[in-house]
């Protein structure tokens, strides 16, 4: 082709005035910017031995100390667990095994135990359940959050999700749903035994639920009276409850829907074996441990039947650390993963030295 053209015109790169023959004005050539011509400054990472192997070693060196730290912390947490289901015939609670939810008088049992080591910091008292599937789908949906938030129209008109626990004897149930209906209602009391004298240990029932749950999510129905009985007029108690919801506690800021035990129960657990915070045992002063070593006794008012579905109930006394309750899994997992990373780093280093690192530029066919 013997066409001469102006190199200068091409060099400055402005879109030429005449584009396609027959077209008017605008050229279809994209602008000569870095963005449109795909010339943006870019970083092209490649997995070379120089980056991957140090990364593995660094991950190994970081994870192993973290794992050891977590494991040591978890081992230092004091925990004491008592299973009081009563399936064993020698257990004091065996007589309460087949109790039903409305037995009168309620079945009580006492279990004596000994703490070998004192519990230094604040002690948390939990109740734990096993084989209780709070994560069953229809169970989890069986609640009415706007009723629990104090909405007056939902109070008298519970949502359909609560079926079949939404009305009873012609009146709407407050709180409705299967979760509320199956609320845990055992009473646990702790006594210290000191030479034949039993001193009760003060158990704090406030501060066991999440702040957002207690102050935002759960609200009592509003009205121009402070009398909760009047505010809940027109509703009835859940089928399996001994008392209605406005009689859960005598204190007004722990009664009704904002009762903290109720709130803790309504926060459904993810796994079939779980523990929920029941009471707090606070440290009185820094000189004495919260729970000294010695003999204790646990008084149980056994109202909650679990034997029919092979469930188990237990009481747990535990201290807490910066990573939560006693759980060796995370520490062991970190140590394992750190060691595997380190070992893989060594193996890859050996493989790379022996077999890798071929010269590539000569092999590429152009």
């Amino acid at each position: 082709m013997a066409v001469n053209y102006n190199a200068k015109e091409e060099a400055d790169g402005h879109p030429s005035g005449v584009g396609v023959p027959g077209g008017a004005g605008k050229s279809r050539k994209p602008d000569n910017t870095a963005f449109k011509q795909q010339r943006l400054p870019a970083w092209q990472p490649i997995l070379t031995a120089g980056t991957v192997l140090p990364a593995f070693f660094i991950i190994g060196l970081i994870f192993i100390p973290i794992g050891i730290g977590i494991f040591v912390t978890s081992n230092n947490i004091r925990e004491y667990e008592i299973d009081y289901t009563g399936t064993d015939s020698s257990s004091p609670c065996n007589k309460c095994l087949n109790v039903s939810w409305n037995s009168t008088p309620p079945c009580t049992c006492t279990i004596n135990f000994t703490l070998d080591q004192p519990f230094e910091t604040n002690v948390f008292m939990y109740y734990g359940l096993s084989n209780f599937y709070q994560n069953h789908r229809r169970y989890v949906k069986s609640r009415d959050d706007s009723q629990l938030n104090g909405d007056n129209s939902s109070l008298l008109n519970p949502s359909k999700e609560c079926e079949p626990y939404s009305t009873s004897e012609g009146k709407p149930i407050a709180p409705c749903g299967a979760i509320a209906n199956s609320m845990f209602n055992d009473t646990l009391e702790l006594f210290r035994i000191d030479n034949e004298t039993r001193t009760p240990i003060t158990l704090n029932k406030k501060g066991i639920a999440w702040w957002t749950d207690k102050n935002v999510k759960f609200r009592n129905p509003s009205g121009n009276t402070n009398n909760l009985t009047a505010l809940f007029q027109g509703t009835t108690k859940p089928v399996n409850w001994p008392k209605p919801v406005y009689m859960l506690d005598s204190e007004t800021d722990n009664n009704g829907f904002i009762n903290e035990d109720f709130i803790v129960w309504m926060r459904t657990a993810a796994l079939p074996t779980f523990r929920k915070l029941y009471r707090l045992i606070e440290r009185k002063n820094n000189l004495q441990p919260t729970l000294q070593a010695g003999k204790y006794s646990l008084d149980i008012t056994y109202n909650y039947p679990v034997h029919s579905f092979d469930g188990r109930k237990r009481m747990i006394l535990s201290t807490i650390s910066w990573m939560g309750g006693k759980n060796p899994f995370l520490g062991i997992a970190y140590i394992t993963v750190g060691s595997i990373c380190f070992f893989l780093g060594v193996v890859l280093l050996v493989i790379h030295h022996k077999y890798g690192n071929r010269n590539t530029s000569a092999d590429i066919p152009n």
Partner: protein
Amino acid sequence: MDYAKLYEPGQLNLLFNKRKFFICIAHGVYTSFALFFIPYGAFYNTAGEDGKHIADYQSFAVTVATSLVIVVSVQIALDTSYWTAINRFFILGSIAVYFAILFAMHSDGIFVIFPNHFPFVGNARNSLSQISVWLVILLTTVISVMPVITFRFLKEDLNPTLIDQVRKLQKARRKQKPLQNYMCQVSRRSSRRSAYAFSHQEGFGELITSGKNMTMHNSISWIENLRKKTAETVNSFRSDRTVKL
């Protein structure tokens, strides 16, 4: 067009075939197991750092979902081989948008408006402020991504594909030479042209067969058009530095 042989893997279906598909599925299954069972083990029968609930259904969901988003973003980042500002913006932006939406959906304000649709109120704040949740997320990410890096590194080291070799070569070259000057390519182009470019031009066929007189003023306009069209085509090739003529 430097490395024409790079087209071969695509043509031979080497980059996506049944074997790769099943490897992909196996990788997904492995990651899913890690994403569920690590939080399962970490939250089994335990409580949070203030003693309160951490093993509840909603916190478990938040932990697994956050781990999932981070694992997927890290996987995408591993696969991105050309990091421009746009890539950075979108990958980091997607993680940021996830957290923004998470906190928005778990906020008090939206719960007050729609209590039945946003029951996760307070969850993001409560879960993500616990150290053990972040430790679980970090562990899950490393467990999910480590095998991928291992396999890729081994494959690249022992059996590098053409693409890997070319990238290594480009990287090595870029370290040695500075960026090429555009001007020297332009001056070359005035004398040499790719036959490929002009095989798609009209050529003089129409001019000749149209029977137009080759007078001065006609031919100039025709040739002017042709020259401008040529200039456009060559301009579009000029930006690709690896074109050899």
